[in-house]
């Protein structure tokens, strides 16, 4: 059997050549990485979180190192949806010829809907990934995704303005992630993606102050893989819609583990920052890893651990 077909999977009615999706915020709009390799080898990718207005993001330092991971406090820096449509998507389309995932952030249901509407005429967009979980941005305190009702409201607002698949991206910084996934599904979400970063902190021993200017930031990288697997496993039991699993994935083995937990496709974030070739290398390693664990087609293992 040819290897290519073994890796295909499906996400909300769209077939992916393989399950690998560089995660939002770690892959820009793709064109930087296209200088290094042909990014059309990817399943798809999720572009940088886009908001209604341009945002400079948080003060610097925004990055702190952790054992087996990192904290980021980028704070949704992006040029705003209109500049994304005008300047970023044309460049993206030049180097990527598959449907792309549009990651959307916001500070009210209306803002999310505005941004999705502004993007909806772009044929290159296959899915929306609605980030209700960014821990860097506080609109009146709580994060949207920490509350079932607020998550439901955002999902509903977005659902109304597009026919394309809506994937709601959840925060792990909650008491019961399965409840929030169910709230999104009930409002018409076509998929769930998780996890966004965990709220974390590092303190500099020399200055005796937090390393990150905003004090806290989002923790991700290999250290969070067990948390992500647990969350995906719980959400898989709670909803019927497909799941994009992510958090700490950096190898073909991690991808298999994530799919066994219940993911139909797998996001790769921080690993791209350490090694710009990480996703390409994972895709190349997948057939060998499937052989090693006596797996025929990768789509057959989705949720296999349940």
């Amino acid at each position, binding site marked *: 059997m040819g290897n290519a077909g073994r890796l295909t999977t499906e996400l909300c009615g769209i077939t992916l050549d393989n399950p690998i999706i560089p995660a939002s915020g770690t892959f820009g709009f793709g064109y930087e990485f296209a200088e290094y390799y042909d990014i059309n080898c990817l399943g798809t990718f999720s572009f940088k979180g886009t908001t209604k207005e341009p945002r*400079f993001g948080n003060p610097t330092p*925004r*990055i702190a*190192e952790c054992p087996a991971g990192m904290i*980021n406090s*980028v704070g949704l820096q992006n040029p705003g949806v209109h500049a994304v449509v005008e300047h970023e998507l044309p460049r993206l389309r030049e180097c990527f010829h598959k449907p792309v995932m549009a990651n959307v952030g916001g500070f009210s249901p209306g803002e999310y809907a505005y941004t999705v509407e502004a993007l909806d005429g772009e044929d290159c967009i296959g899915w929306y990934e609605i980030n209700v979980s960014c821990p860097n941005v506080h609109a009146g305190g709580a994060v949207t995704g920490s509350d079932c009702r607020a998550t439901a409201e955002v999902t509903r607002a977005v659902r109304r303005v597009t026919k394309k698949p809506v994937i709601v991206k959840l925060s792990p910084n909650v008491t019961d992630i399965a409840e929030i996934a169910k709230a999104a599904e009930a409002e018409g979400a076509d998929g769930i993606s998780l996890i966004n970063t965990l709220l974390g902190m590092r303190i500099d021993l020399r200055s005796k102050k937090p390393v990150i200017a905003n004090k806290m930031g989002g923790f991700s990288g*290999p250290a969070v893989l067990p948390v992500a697997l647990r969350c995906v496993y719980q959400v898989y039991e709670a909803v019927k819609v497909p799941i994009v699993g992510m958090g700490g994935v950096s190898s073909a083995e991690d991808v298999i583990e994530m799919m066994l937990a219940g993911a139909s496709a797998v996001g790769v974030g921080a690993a791209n*920052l*350490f090694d710009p070739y990480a996703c390409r290398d994972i895709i190349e390693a997948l057939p060998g890893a499937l052989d090693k664990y006596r797996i025929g087609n990768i789509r057959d293992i989705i949720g296999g651990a349940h």
Partner: protein
Amino acid sequence: MEKTVLTVIENVPVAKDVYKMRLSGAAGETGPGQFINIAVPGRFLRRPISVHDACADGITIIYKVIGGGTEDMSRMEKGTRLDVLTCLGNGFDTAPSGDAPLLLGGGLGTAPMYLLAKKLVCEGKHPRAVLGFASADDVFGADELSSLGVDVAVTTVDGSLGVKGFVTDALPEEFSYVYACGPLPMMRAVYDKTKTDGVGGQYSFEARMGCGFGACLGCSIKTTGGSRRVCRDGPVFRREEIIWETREG
């Protein structure tokens, strides 16, 4: 950017807690002011270090032991193979330098000045340098620059070597352009001192980096042209692009 494996062929102290590491291997074509990003085994983020010297078969860096990553580097033996991203960043542009540019290095900011001086000399220009350090124990790089025929002055804060004070206390009367790399207070002082005479310049910045090649927006700074990435649009910025107010000390 190129991803490559380089081999440590020399790793020796050159000043207090400061080491010179020579790396051999195909490192791509590196210009002055560019940097490399080194994977230190067991550490999640790479360590960005400026290129001190570069040739067809390798790169030399000079680094100071600051924390765990650079401490690990200081213990690396000859023959150690390192996973490195090379040719990173937008370095110094020698085109606007004029005939007598001034190179200003503060502490480890001295490291990139050697490759820059080499290029300027190669272009038939006559660079001068002022290098500032805390104390005599910290001084490195002056002889190497002199050997290129560059007129070098050294300042130390405690006066234990050269002129007592900061680089701004030893600026020559006339120069055609400024290239500066060092701590922010030093670069700002240089910027302010050269404000009235309209001398142009390029300033090299540092930032905490997630990737070093433009993907994460971890290193953003505000410039007169909008938001820029230190790792990709910089680390070198022209004086007219710089907004000091938004830089944390």
